[in-house]
């Protein structure tokens, strides 16, 4: 099953299970089914719960907040996560504030879905990974889709928080296959501990914490991470543990520390541009917890401090590639 189908199935289930759940967004109706086809079939099955909207990113996030405030639940699709900038006020200054600024918790079960990232040649305003700009808003949680996750559980978890959540969905994953059964290939296995997926040689069979180096990365980075880990292992016999937290923020530094065991070299990777990254927050949390243990500071890998160009060869140079990951892992381990 492809990742887009998995998310689609999860949305089918969520809308079916909960008649008070709405899904809104631009062009989400059948037969179009959304720009990335993730909402396919939903409006046919749940015509009363699925609304197509005008081009009004700010407004539709506000509408979702209003539904949540009134006791319903809402999932909004922002067609490209780049446009979440238009909804910043509604997310930061209304939805997230409402949870906490009235002196008592106000339930605000809503999810803003954001197809994210580059690699498809869509150009500078349709390829960004803006996760980092929403990190650190009190009352707002950030998640990222991965090819490991049970997406039904993911939506249930986010809505169950009763505070606004933004879900980043790396577009590049939509057409990739879901991983199932704990096995990636002959080399790597995975399991899940709490909100974190672990991937490595030892996972599920031995002690994964015995790895040489650890890589922490969100879901969109998984395939590049696997490629880097594979070549690192086969060509240099360096073993890497990959941790994929589905919740990016609040980041659970304790849980990650526990999963890292005695690892002394850590890399954090993401698709956002350099500067003020999510990785800096992760690094801060790990430095606080693992100062004596780390051989050198956590290495951050991210896209160049640049717009994401349209042309494939230029885009390739700006975005994180598996070779960048491999190099960072190697240098961090050996360095």
């Amino acid at each position: 099953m492809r990742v887009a189908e998995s998310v689609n199935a999860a949305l089918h289930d969520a809308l079916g299970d909960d008649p008070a759940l709405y899904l809104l967004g631009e062009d989400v109706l059948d037969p179009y089914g959304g720009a990335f086809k993730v909402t396919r079939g939903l409006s046919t099955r749940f015509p009363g719960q699925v609304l197509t909207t005008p081009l009004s990113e700010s407004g539709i996030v506000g509408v979702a907040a209003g539904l949540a405030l009134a006791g319903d639940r809402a999932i909004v699709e922002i067609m490209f996560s780049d446009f979440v900038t238009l909804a910043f006020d509604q997310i930061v200054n209304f939805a997230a504030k409402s949870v906490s600024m009235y002196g008592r918790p106000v339930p605000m079960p809503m999810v803003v879905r954001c197809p994210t990232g580059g690699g498809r040649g869509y150009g500078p305003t349709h390829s960004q990974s803006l996760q980092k700009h929403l990190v650190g808003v009190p009352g707002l949680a950030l998640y990222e889709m991965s090819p490991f996750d049970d997406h039904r559980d993911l939506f249930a978890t986010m809505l169950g928080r009763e505070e606004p959540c933004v879900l980043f969905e790396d577009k590049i994953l939509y057409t990739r296959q879901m991983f199932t059964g704990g096995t990636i290939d002959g080399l790597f296995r995975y399991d899940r501990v709490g909100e974190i997926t672990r991937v490595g040689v030892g996972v599920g069979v031995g002690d994964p914490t015995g790895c040489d180096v650890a890589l922490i990365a969100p879901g969109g980075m998984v395939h590049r991470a696997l490629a880097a880990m594979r070549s690192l292992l086969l060509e240099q016999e360096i073993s890497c543990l990959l941790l994929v937290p589905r919740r990016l923020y609040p980041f659970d530094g304790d849980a990650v520390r526990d999963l890292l065991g005695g690892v002394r070299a850590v890399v954090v990777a993401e698709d956002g541009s350099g500067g003020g990254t999510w990785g800096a927050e992760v690094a801060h949390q790990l430095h606080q917890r693992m100062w004596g243990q780390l051989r050198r500071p956590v290495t951050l890998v991210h896209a160049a401090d640049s717009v994401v160009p349209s042309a494939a060869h230029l885009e390739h140079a700006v975005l994180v590639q598996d070779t960048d990951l491999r190099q960072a892992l190697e240098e961090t381990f050996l360095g």
Partner: protein
Amino acid sequence: MTLSVSASGHAVREDLLTDDAGLLLVIRHFESKLLDLFDRGLLNGTTHTCLGQEHVPVALAPLLTEADFVFSNHRGHGHYLALRRDPAGLLAEITGREGAVCGGVGGSQHLLNGRYLSTGVQGQSLPVAVGTALHLARSEPGAVAVAFVGDGTWGEGSVYEALNMACLWRLPLLVVTENNGIAQSTPTSMELAGTIAGRAAAFGAAHHLTGTADVAGLRAEAAPLLAAVRAGAGPHVLEVDVHRLGPHSKGDDTRPAEELRRAAEHDWYAPLAAARPDLDERARRFVDDIAEEVLSRPLSGWRP
């Protein structure tokens, strides 16, 4: 209108808070009291009084029920007092005392009480109101969402995104615009091209303009609008021409004296106080007592 028990449990004087004239006077004295407390250094933060605009919420209050959502703005004390009849809870909020309706966290501009909610970012509440109206249309037909916005707030793009959706989906939304001819310091003519009537019409929202400061008259004009919205006639805009008597927040009125004098000519207060001096005096004392009592309370407790 159901009477909310004050968040503080403070005994409410029903005769003052249920009678239109009493309510008008309570709001007036409440707002004057705030400016007075500020002058005496007893309040911090900011406040935007509704002096001169009290009749709008007083007229609308009996037309609304607790099933209706009400979105208020920065100039919302009158809205809150008319709709929730909770002066002690509000003053405690503004002064950060026990019994504050939002624990002292929200303060003057950020109030939540049942389905009454205010926020400090202009225009932001309109799309939210549309969301609640969507809920009401689907799940609680007959109830409405009411949003108060000033004339200046029609500068914000959110207003139009909201109107468009509300009209497309024919939702039970009433936008009440208290047009006081000014936004902070900027006259409407410098901030609003065209008219609010034209803007409502552009989206297909019904619009009604009135300049009456008479509570009963305004209520009579508003009643059929609300009835229509409840009945499914789609979004309406009620525009009330009003006069802001006081500063925008505090001590920041740079309008010329002549203009202030003209605004004051429209004030309902002097005639009412002259006609009912006893009621005026009781309202003033009522507010004085509340202020004294609330200010003697311990500070509100809250943890992030």
